[in-house]
C-alpha cells in the first residue's frame, strides 16, 4: 500500500490505459457494452415494460448499496442492512395501517426507526470496541427476531393507496418513480461526502482512526453517525420495496434479511469503495448497482439464469475484487519503477 507516495500529476502521466484503472469510466463502458449486447440479443430488453421493471429493481439496489457504503467508509460493515430494512418497513406499515397515520408521516417514522436501529449498532460498536461484524451479526438476528415476534409474521397489506402508487408510477411509460428517489438520495450523499466538513471527517476517520483522533476528530461520533445513516438508507430501501410490492412483507429480504447481503456488498465493491475504509464512491456504487441489475435482467430475459443467477453474481463479485487487486498491485509496481 505505497500508493499514496506519488502526487496525482505524477501518477497520471504514465497512464495510457487510465480508463481501465478508473472505476467510473470502466463501469459506464461495461454497462453500455452489456446494454448494447442485450438490446440486440435479449428479446424484450428495450421494451418499455422491461425498462420500467428494471428501473424499479435498480433503484432499490442502489439504495441498498448506499446503506452498506456509508458503513464501509468507516472501515466497518453492517450485516443488519436487510434486517433493519425489513423491520423499519414493517414499522412503517404498522404506522400507516394500524395507527392510520398519513403515509408521509408513517414513512418518516420508518426512516427514523431505521436510524435508531442503525445508531444502536454504531453505539454498540464504539462502546464495546468489538468489530461491527459481530455486533451487526447479533443485531441482525435481534432486530429480525423482534420484528417477527411483534408482527407474528403477518404482512401489512392494506397500505394507503397514495403510498403504494409510488411503486407503480412510471414516467414516459418506462421510468419508474423509484429511480428519482434513488438518484436524489445519491445526490445528497454526494454533497455530504464531497463538500461538507462532516463528510471529510468521516473519510479521514475511516482512513486512519488514530491520526484522525489525534487531529481532533471525534472518531466515535462519526462511526455512530454512519451507522445511523446506514439505518435510514436501509429503511428507505425497505419502504421502496414495500411500495413496489404493495405490501409490507416480513419475508421480503429473506431469512434474517440475508438476501440483501450480496447486493449490498456488490454495488459498493464494484464501484471502488474499499473495505478497509476511508474511501468511497457514491457514483461508483450507483453504477455498480446499475451494472448488476442490467446483467441480472438480461440473463433472466435470455432464460439463462433462473436458478444459476446466484452463481453469476458470485462470480462477478469475485472477478471484481480480484481485478481490483490486480489493478492496485499493477499501480504499486509501476510507482515502484518510477521511484527506482
Amino acid at each position, binding site marked *: 500500500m505505497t500508493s499514496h507516495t506519488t502526487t496525482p500529476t505524477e501518477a497520471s502521466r504514465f497512464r495510457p490505459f487510465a480508463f481501465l484503472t478508473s472505476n467510473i469510466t470502466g463501469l459506464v463502458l461495461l454497462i453500455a457494452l452489456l446494454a448494447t449486447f442485450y438490446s440486440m440479443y435479449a428479446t424484450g430488453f428495450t421494451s418499455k415494460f422491461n425498462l420500467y421493471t428494471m428501473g424499479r429493481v435498480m433503484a432499490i439496489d442502489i439504495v441498498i448499496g448506499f446503506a452498506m457504503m456509508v458503513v464501509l467508509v468507516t472501515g466497518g460493515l453492517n450485516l443488519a442492512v436487510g434486517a433493519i430494512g425489513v423491520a423499519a418497513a414493517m414499522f412503517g406499515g404498522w404506522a400507516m395501517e394500524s395507527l392510520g397515520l398519513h403515509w408521509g408521516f408513517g414513512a418518516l417514522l420508518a426512516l427514523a426507526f431505521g436510524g435508531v436501529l442503525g445508531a444502536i449498532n454504531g453505539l454498540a460498536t464504539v462502546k464495546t*470496541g468489538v468489530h461491527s461484524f459481530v455486533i451487526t*451479526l*447479533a443485531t441482525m*438476528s*435481534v432486530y429480525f*427476531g423482534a420484528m417477527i415476534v411483534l408482527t407474528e409474521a403477518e404482512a401489512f397489506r392494506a397500505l394507503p393507496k397514495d403510498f403504494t402508487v409510488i411503486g407503480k408510477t412510471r414516467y414516459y411509460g418506462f421510468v419508474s418513480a423509484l429511480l428519482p428517489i434513488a438518484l436524489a438520495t445519491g445526490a445528497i450523499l454526494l454533497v455530504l461526502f464531497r463538500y461538507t466538513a462532516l463528510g471529510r471527517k468521516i473519510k479521514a476517520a475511516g482512513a486512519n482512526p488514530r491520526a484522525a483522533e489525534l487531529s481532533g476528530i471525534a472518531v466515535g461520533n462519526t462511526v455512530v453517525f454512519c451507522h445511523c445513516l446506514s439505518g435510514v438508507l436501509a429503511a428507505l430501501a425497505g419502504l421502496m420495496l414495500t411500495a413496489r410490492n404493495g405490501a409490507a412483507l416480513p419475508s421480503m429480504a429473506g431469512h434474517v434479511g440475508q438476501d440483501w447481503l450480496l447486493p449490498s456488498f456488490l454495488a459498493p465493491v464494484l464501484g471502488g469503495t474499499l473495505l478497509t475504509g476511508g474511501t468511497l464512491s457514491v457514483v461508483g456504487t450507483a453504477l455498480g448497482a446499475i451494472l448488476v441489475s442490467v446483467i441480472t435482467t438480461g440473463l433472466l430475459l435470455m432464460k439463462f439464469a433462473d*436458478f444459476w443467477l*446466484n452463481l453469476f453474481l458470485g462470480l462477478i*463479485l469475485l472477478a471484481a475484487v480480484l481485478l481490483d487487486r490486480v489493478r492496485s498491485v499493477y499501480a504499486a509496481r509501476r510507482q515502484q519503477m518510477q521511484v527506482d
Partner: protein
Amino acid sequence: MRRSLLNIDWLGLLAIAIAGSMALAWYKPAFLSTHNLYVLMLGFSLSVLVALSQMVIIAIGQMNLAVGAIGGMVAIIFAGSMEVLGLPVPVAVLLGILIGVIAGFINGYITVKSGISAFVITLATLSIFKGINLGITEAQPFYAIPDVVKQLGNARLGPVPYLLFLPLAIVVLLTILMTRSVIGKQILAVGANPNAASLSGISLTRVVVIAHIISGSLAAIAGMLTVARLQMGDPMIGNDWLLISFAAPVIGGAVLTGGSVSVIGTCLGVVVITLISNALVLLEVDPYYVQLLLGLLILSAVGLNRYREVRQRRASA
C-alpha cells in the same frame, strides 16, 4: 495467564449448562424424557459440526460466510449423486467430502493469494456455491435417498442418536489437532500474528489453505448428516447456519481477531444454544424467540468478554 482465563471461560459455560438443565428438568419433567433427550442430542450433533467449521477459520483470524453454502451444496450433490447417478453410498460420501475439501481449498487459496479479506471472498463463494445448489436442484429437493442413509438418520441407542457418534469423534480429533499437533499450533500462531508466524518460518499459504480445507470438510459432513436427518436432499440445507456458526464459538470464548479458540468452549456454546431452543419448545414459547435470544446471547457474550478485558487491564495497570 491466557490459559487459565480460557479455563474459567468454559467452566462458567459448563455451570450455566448444568444449572439450566437442572432447572428445566425440575420445572418440566418432560425435559428428561427419552424422546426429548434424543431430540436434544440430535440438534447438538448437527450444530456442533457447523460451529467447529467456523471455529477453525476464526482461529486463523478470518471468517467463513460460506459454511452454510458449502454444507448445502454438498448435501444436494450427495443426495443427487445417489438418486440420479445411482452412486453407492460410500462413493457418494467420499464425493461429498471431496467437494467440501475443494470448496475449502478454493476459499483458502484465493484468500491467501489475493490478500483480499476472507469476508468478501467467502461472500462471493457463498453465492457461487448456493448458485450451483439452486442450478442443480432448481429449488426442488431430492427425495429418493437410499434406505441405509435414512436408517442411519433414524437409528438410536435409547436416547442416543447414531448421528451423534461421528461428531463426537470429530470433537475429540479436533481437540487433539488444535492442542497437540504442529498444524494446530501453526493455525493459532497465524491467527494471533500472521507476520510473526510468517517470519518464524510458517508457510501462511499452507496453514490458511489447510484451515479452510478442514472447515470445508466439516461443513460437508454436517451437510450429509443433515440429509440423513431430514431423509432428503433439501436445497434449503445450510440457509440458517450463519448465525449459529458464529454464536457458538463466540459464546465459547473465541477471540474473533484470531489466535484463541477453544473446542470445548465451542461445544459448550452449542450445548447452551441447544438447551435454550429446547427450553423455548418445552415452555411452549413462540419459536421465533430463538432468533431474538441468539442475537442477545452473542451481544452479551461479546460484552462480557469486553468487560473482563477492561477489568484485567485495570488490574494490571
